Each structure stands twice: as C-alpha cells, then as structure tokens.
C-alpha cells in the first residue's frame, strides 16, 4: 500500500515523513507521511483509536508531555525540523497553536485568558497594545461582540461554545502559523458547532488549519484536504471532494458511508 501521500498543491506549510509513534509497546502511528498546505483546512478523519489525535499532537510536540511516548521520523515546519535538538518546544507551540476537544479556558478572566499567551511571549509592548491584541483575537474568534462588556468575568462562566471560541481566540493571540484543532466541536451543540465551523472558514488562509473530527459532514463542510486514518496508518489523503465522492480505497469508502467506525 502506498503510504506516501501526494504533495499538496500550493505552498506546503508542514511536512511529515515516515512518522512512527510508540506508547511503550504499542505502535500507535505507523509510518505516516503527509504534507499540510498553507492555504488549506486539512481534516483528519477515522474511527476512534486510529491515531489521528496522536498524529495531530506530534505536529506541535504535545506528545512530549506523555511519559512513555516515543517518536521516530521527521516533521518540518517551513523546512525546519521541529524534532531537531536545537528546536525550542515552547516557541514551536506558540507557532503551532492548539485547540482541544474539551473547551479548557483558564479559570481566569476572559481578558486574562487571551492576554496570557502574548504576555508570556512578550508580544505586547504595553497595556494599550495588549488591549489591542485581545480585542483583535476576540474579534477574529467571533466572540468580541458577546463579551466586550464583561472582559473581567471568568472565562469558565461562558457557555460551552463561547468557551471553545475563547480557546481559539487564546490560540490566535500569540499569532501562530498553524492551528491544530482536536475535535473542537465534539462537546458542543449544533448551533455552537455551526459557529465554530463558520469561524474555521473565516480563519482559512490566514492560518494553516488541521482539524481532527468524527463528523463526516463537518469534514466535508470545512476542509479542502482530508486524510483518512485507520489503525495507525494513513489510508488515503487527497482533496476533500475526491475523498467523499470518489474514494480510491474500499476502507475509506466503507468508513465514510457508515459501514463501520
């Protein structure tokens, strides 16, 4: 089976080659190679436990925090090896931001949630600039109008959908190049989900976006590229329209038509 995905057209933001991840004895990711395009929303789909979240977390080295995880292979961000010894993980994670499955705002004020990243990276020269960054990030996350009068309220007091958009604003605030989203809508109701999808649509082009989702329709709606994972391998990767209308692999076809998964 051909494990090497075709290079994405347009500018390539991230390149993964022969990536293997082991959790202790478990071989979680098997020899995956993929190119992530700059202008695209790339969706990772696949049944539970297929390794799509694990692979997503290798893209900003969040797997480093797991004690027995082991990485092999090569991942590049703009041609720079992110697993090189001289790569600073902290800066990498600022450049490759992440939004998690469950909204996880800090138990601080809305303002502090967004301002935290710029503050620790020293991105704002003063209070005025910080205010600007916070407003801009909240606007881009489509949350500004809803929270502008209560920036000092706790971030955890917002509704689930608002919390998730706050988390996106928090990721945007440090001006990342890539945003990784790990099932960002799985804990949200349909209306909140629609808002997030709209937001992803708006953010496309400004940031390279990779989204893991269980929801076929969502993948079809928001992404231009889709990668189908199964049992730790990358089965098929291509234009979303092709994957959903004309999959090359039977496993892909079975999955997207709901035969299993």
């Amino acid at each position, binding site marked *: 089976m051909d494990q090497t995905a075709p290079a994405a057209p347009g500018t390539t933001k991230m390149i993964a080659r022969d990536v293997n991840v082991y959790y202790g004895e478990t071989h979680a990711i098997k020899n995956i190679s993929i190119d992530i395009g700059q202008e695209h929303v790339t969706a990772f789909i696949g049944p539970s436990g297929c390794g799509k979240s694990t692979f997503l977390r290798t893209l*900003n080295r*969040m797997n480093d*925090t797991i*004690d027995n995880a082991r990485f092999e292979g090569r991942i590049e961000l703009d041609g720079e090896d992110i697993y090189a010894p001289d790569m600073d993980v*902290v*800066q*990498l*994670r*600022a*450049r490759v*931001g*992440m*939004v*998690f499955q*469950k909204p*996880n*705002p*800090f*138990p*601080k004020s809305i303002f502090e949630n967004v301002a*935290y*990243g710029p503050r*620790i*990276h020293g991105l704002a020269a003063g209070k005025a600039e910080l205010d600007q960054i916070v407003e801009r990030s909240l606007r881009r996350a489509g949350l500004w109008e809803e929270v502008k009068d209560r920036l000092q309220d*706790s971030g*955890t007091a917002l509704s689930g959908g608002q919390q998730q958009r706050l*988390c996106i604003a*928090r*990721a945007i*605030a*440090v001006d990342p190049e890539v945003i990784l989203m790990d099932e960002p809508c799985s804990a949200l109701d349909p209306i909140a989900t629609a808002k997030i999808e709209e937001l992803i649509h708006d953010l496309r082009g400004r940031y390279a976006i990779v989204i893991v989702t269980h929801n076929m329709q969502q993948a079809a709606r928001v992404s231009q590229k889709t990668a189908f994972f199964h049992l730790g391998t990358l089965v098929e990767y291509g234009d979303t329209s092709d994957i959903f209308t004309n999959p090359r692999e039977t496993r892909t076809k079975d999955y997207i038509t709901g035969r299993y998964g």
Partner: protein
Amino acid sequence: MAVPEQTVTQRRAPTDWRGEKMRGRLRRRYRSERAFRLLGLGAVSLSALFLAFLLWTMVSNGFTGFLQTEVRLPIRLDPVTLQLSSSQLAGGNADQALASADIEAVTLQAARNIYGENARQILSEGAWIYVRDALKADPTLLGQQIDLWVPVSSELDLIAKDRATPEILVRAGETYRSLDQQGAIRTALNTRFLTAADSTDPTLVGIWGAFKGSLLTMLVTLVLAFPVGVLSALYLEEYAPKNRWTDLIEVSINNLAAVPSIIFGLLGLAVFLNVMHLPRSAPIVGGLTLALMTLPVIVIAGRNAIKSVPPSIRDAALGIGASRVQVVFHHVLPLALPGILTGTIIGMARALGETAPLLMIGMRAFISAAPEGLTAPATALPVQIFLWSDEVSRGFVEKTSAAIIVLLAFLLAMNGVAIYLRNKFERRW
C-alpha cells in the same frame, strides 16, 4: 450453568410489585435506611457532646485562671528603709536601683503591720513585685503612704475561687473570712498571667513565655516546612520521572508521615544538638524538629492538591507555548494552593500540639522569662501544660486549664488565618 429448556421458553409471570414479598422487601429497605440515618445522627451528636463537654470543662476550670484574688496592702514607701532616693529612680539605672533595694522586706513588714504574724500566709510570695512595679511606673510614690492591691497567697486564692480542699480551709479559712469582712479582698483580672513566664508560685505564673516560645517555634516550622514541602510536591508531581526511585521516595514520605513524633524528637536531639551543636531548649531547634515532622504531611497534601488540578489546564498552557515552570507557577500552583493550605493547617495544628519531640530537645526546662529570640531558652504551650499538670500545688490546676484555653485560642487563630487565605485564593478563580 445450564438453564432448563422449559424455563427459557416459558413466559415469566409479570412481576408482582404489590405482593407480600415485595412489600416485605420495601419495609426492610426503609428500615435499614432509617437505621443508617439514626446511626449517623448518633455519631455526630456523640462527637458534638464530647466537644461540648471538653470545652465546658476547660472553660469552667480555666477561666478563673485569668483572674486573681488581691488583698489591700497599705504601705509606706519610705526612702530610708528602702535605701532608695528619688534621683536614683529618675536616672537610667532605675532598674538596678530597684533590684538592689530591699523591697521584699519592706512589703512583708507593711503586711505584718496591718495583718500581724499571719502576713506570710496572706500575701503571695511575689507581692513585692507588684510594689516594685508600682514604684517603677510612678517614681513620685517614693516617700508616700499608699494603698496597693497585691495578690494573695495561693491558698487564699483557692478559697476565694471556691476550689480549696478541706485541709486548706482548716488552715486558712478563718483568715480569709476575716479579711473578706474587712473588705480587704477583691478579684481582679490577672494581667500577669498574660504577660509573665513560668514561676514556682501559682499566683505568679504567666503563659506569655510559653506562648512566645510556641510562636517562634511555629514560625521556624512554617518558614522551613511550607516552601520545602510545596516545592517537593511540585517537583515530584510535575517534573520527576515515574520510576523505581520516585516510587521509593513516595513510600518513604508516606512512612515518614506515620512515624511517631518522639522519634523525630530523638532525631532532633541527635542531629541538631549533638552533631550541629545548636543551643538546647531553643525555639530554632524545636522549629527544625517540628518542621521535619510537618514536612511529609505538607508534601502528601500538596501532591494530592496538585494531582487534582485538571490536566486540561496544563495542556491549555503548554498548547500556547508556556514553559514547564510557567505552567507550574501560573496555573498549577494557584489552583492547588487552597488544597495545599488545608494540608499545611493540618500539619501545623499537629505541630503546635506536639509535646514529645520538644521534651527530647530540652524544651521542658523551667524557664522564667519569655524567650528573646530564636536561640534563647524557651518552652512551648503544650509542654507548659504538661509541666503545670505535673505540679503538686493545687493552684496550678486552674492555670493548666487556662493554658489549654490559650493553646486552643492559638490554634483557632491559626486556622482562622489559613481559612481566610484559602477562601481568598479560591475566590480569585
């Protein structure tokens, strides 16, 4: 297990929810729930009862310890017999002059003049201290005839407080009644109890020495155990790899928390006194010893509090590029702090009430002055209580209870501060 063919094929009769069997089951369930609730209620009321009994005993026995019985003493502060001049009192050496003056004899003579040969039995041994203090406070009294209220002897004090044994009543009952009839007896607040240190005479003892000793000891304990404990907990939870060594450390810490306190006293004796030659009976040594004892408690509580901080918060911070240290100090520690403080209160409360290790390092010595610093000889509240409870003189009974009240008040104040801090940190989120 094989199921007979017909039971599978047979249709089951519908469950009889109102049948006798079901009603019996229901009754039994209600009965056991009622019994459980009563048991719980009983347990809570029993402990409340014990607590009330304890408090009532302490307060009823101890509150008279804060009072003292005084007798009127008309005294002429004659410069000649006192061998004092007003110029001496005005100068900077007033204390020395007062110390060399024979105030004790003059006081006793004054008492003899009015109460006859009984005077020794009436006045407290330390009555002269009150004369001295009056003179020190107001040097113009020299040469004047004044009426002073000075404490009575322990026996008369007991009679006044209705705590005398029959023997005491036989010995001194008559004296007390005649003084009382003359209106020469009064009850006043025992300010000395709150300002002085230990003494051999129960009418002269004070709790301040032991209180200050405890305060200094606790200060050393807190300053050492809190930061070291919290940092250890943070390191073990957030940084240390999980391997055999950290398992070993965890087991050791859990065991240390269960080690009897007197062992820590022996350790303090061996290490701090015999090896490091720190001063005996000093709050610094007491604090070090108690810090060793408190440390495992804080580490265990701290680790649990840190563990209960949701991992999603760590992910969130790491995900926007916070370093490990920033994650720990910006997010994990503030969220864990209320739990850590709770553990610290428990550890400190235990340390405050600890007697045995302090006995081992010499803090049971008789010390008649409040400690001046961390290396000065001192005693601590629980040790003082232990010492007074051991005294033969009956006057110490109420002082022991009064000291217990002071200890409990100290404990309550400490917990109050900790609860205030905890709420303050919890409100921030």
